[in-house]
């Protein structure tokens, strides 16, 4: 079997004295949508930030697309084709929608059709209508779409997607799910942090459950849905 696109093992991280991750291991293959499920404070966001190099972390293995990314700066990891969509969105509110997308623009790696504005606007039709608008004048849902679109402009092979459904109206959540499915259809892998089981179940192939900084369960999404015990223990509030 070929190597997974993203391989993580023994990933530990701390904020100052407070340890947050205790040897997290997970992997994702090309074109696969993998959910990382867990409650608030379980370590989902830190896992993503540690992978992308935004928090200091140590790991036994941290490989992406055949490269050891443990010591790489964030922008180098991004240039290898690993996109990151933060939970708090972090769009550039002073910039227009178009300029936000322009910041994300990077040439496509060989063998992949690049994301064009037209293609993005098909996935996120709302954005097409507000190209020249300042991002500060957008609704939360629109901002969430923009932040995903901005990362896709970098033509990544994989996207780390942090709680895209959080705080959004059900109809927008549905659009997010469609967006993830569209990304998968383009051959992208997605590591999706979620608390919303319905949303995750609708789009994911496999799932990990994280609690107190360690992976407690790994399996297919269907298995997780069927496993009441795990769900009760780690996911219900």
């Amino acid at each position, binding site marked *: 079997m070929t190597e997974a696109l993203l391989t993580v093992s023994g990933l530990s991280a701390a904020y100052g004295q407070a340890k947050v991750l205790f040897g997290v291991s997970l992997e994702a293959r090309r074109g696969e949508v993998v959910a990382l499920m867990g409650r608030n404070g379980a370590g989902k966001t830190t896992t993503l930030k540690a992978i992308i190099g935004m928090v200091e972390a140590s790991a036994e293995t941290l490989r992406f697309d055949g490269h050891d990314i443990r010591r790489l700066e964030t*922008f180098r990891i*991004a240039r290898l084709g690993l996109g990151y969509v933060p939970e708090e969105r972090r769009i550039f509110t002073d910039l227009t929608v178009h300029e936000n997308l322009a910041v994300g623009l990077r040439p496509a790696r060989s063998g992949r059709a690049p994301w064009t504005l037209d293609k993005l606007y098909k996935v996120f039709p709302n954005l097409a209508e507000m190209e020249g608008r300042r991002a500060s004048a957008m609704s939360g849902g629109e901002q969430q779409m923009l932040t995903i679109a901005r990362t896709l402009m970098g033509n990544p092979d994989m996207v780390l997607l942090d709680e895209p459904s959080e705080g959004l109206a059900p109809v927008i959540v549905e659009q997010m799910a469609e967006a993830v499915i569209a990304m998968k259809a383009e051959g992208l892998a997605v590591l999706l942090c979620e608390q919303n089981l319905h949303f995750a179940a609708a789009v994911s192939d496999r799932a990990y459950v994280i609690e107190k900084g360690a992976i407690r369960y790994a399996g297919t999404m269907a298995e997780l849905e069927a496993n009441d015990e795990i769900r009760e223990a780690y996911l219900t509030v």
Partner: protein
Amino acid sequence: MDPAFIVIQSLSGLASASSLFIIASGLTIVFGVTRIVNFAHGSLYMLGAYLAVTIVPMLLEVDRSLPMFLLGVLLSALIVGVIGAVMEIVLLRRIYHVPELFQLLATFGVVLIVQDLVIKLWGAVEIPGPRAPSLRHGVFIFDQRFPAYELFLIGMGLVVLGLLWLLMQKTRFGVLIRAATQDREMVGALGVNQAWLFTGTLFLGAFLAGLGGALQIPRVAVNTQMDISIITEVFVVTVIGGMGSVPGAFVAALIIGQLQAFGILIFPKITLVLVFLLMAVVLVVKPWGLFGKPDAAAGRAILPEGILSLKRFGRVDTIIAGIAIAVLLALPIVGDNYMVKVGIEVLVLALAAFSLQFLIGVGGIVSFGHAAYFGLGAYAAGLLVTRGGMAMEPALLLAPLVAGGFAALFGFFIVRLSGIYLAMLTLAFAQIVYAVCFQWVAFTGGDNGVVGVWPSAWASSRQVYYYLVLAMTLAAIIALRHAIYAPFGYGLRAARDSAIRADAIGIDVGRIRWFAFTLSGAAAGLAGGLYSFSKGSIDPTMISIPMSVDFLVMVLVGGIQTVIGPVVGAAAFHSVKDFFMPLTDFWRLFLGLSIIMMVLVFPRGIAGATSALVDRKRSVTLPAGGV
């Protein structure tokens, strides 16, 4: 007033505003992207002027024409741009993750280095520049003669504004600068190499500083004080406009330009004061400046770690303190006059540094203008004795009261702010005090100061005065130390670490910070009063920015996380300064390099480093990743 006069006056205000804007836009762009307040921006401006007075005359030899003049100006600015880029690669790149106080100090180290290099290369004598060919005449506006070059400057300001607008809106570099100004970490996560973006930004910022400096050569003789005088003005412009905002810098420069042009008619002596007063008012009404936005990065604590755990004196510490006091008591008996003089200075500076550490390490209030309170104490004592005919004893009592009173007044505004804006406001108030003492010649003696500040007869021997200083500084330090260990000190630290949580448990954060500021100012004032009697004179260097920086360096040398460190730092700093300064013509160069090395190697200072050796468990962690 005659309308023609008003027009002329406002035009000359516009010309200064143009120059200010060109320089300030560079500073504000650099701050926006790198979050570093670059003290050396004024030095880059000065370098631009010195390069231009060298390059432009050479080009005018070839062809005495306006294009050659402009070519020379442009070349100078480009060279400064390259210097800025080198500065980013060599220094700034290493300090993006250190606390902002250290960044400020490190860039001030560059200021010191450039000052000595400029004197070495160009000499200390001011150099008059060539005038611009074809722009030497006057233009008549309402029958009033107005220099054509000033009109040209107004045009240049608008051209720079236009070009910057195009750069920011229409180029990828500009869009990235604007994006990074908002969230540079996210820009990195989108695959942008921040290192090059930052280097490019520093090139642009330094180019603008150099351009501003080079354009000055027909107006002012180039001199070695240009750096400090412009940097304070430019700080004011960027702070009023909102740090990081180019349009803000433009509007603020316009306001300041007009304020100076007309202020000089009404209050000829205190134009500087007006400018800083405006800044203080703007910051109180709009804490982020006119066009600035509340920003977590700009408002975050300028120092992530002050004093974390208070240790009471153990047996070893008590023995060391006892020995130290015994040595201090014995000094006049065993030492010569010179040692006693140095001893007095060390004690005075130790108190000043300790009072600053009280603000910084305990209160998290990073004052960049602590010399103001030291100087106010010195001036109060000195003027009461010389002008008021008062004796030393009441003057020494009044010195801390006057300094404390001003600290209460200024502190009322200062403690409302946080982070870099707070530091800027402390600097502004210090510059107000400096400007008043410098410009009010009749009362304060201006640049020369006042001599004849002598102790009373009984304390006139150096040995006796030494014991007086020893008693008073020790008493003040012990009293302040007591306050640190009292509930007041705990409350202050709580307010430092989380103002919101401290507020929630019933601590009146504003008041406790205000009180701390006042107390610290009074202690510094006592130190200043004692200092003036030991010198026998007062002069404005006691209030200057370099003095404030000296205090900060003492605190840093001693270690920001230790209670007693500043005392050690003051002793170490002053001894080294006293020993080396007479030996070298390059004291500032040496000091600047030392500050930079200290920031890079020992961010916890000497006392901090030794306590780290003793207590290896506690490891200092600076914020990781982009901040």
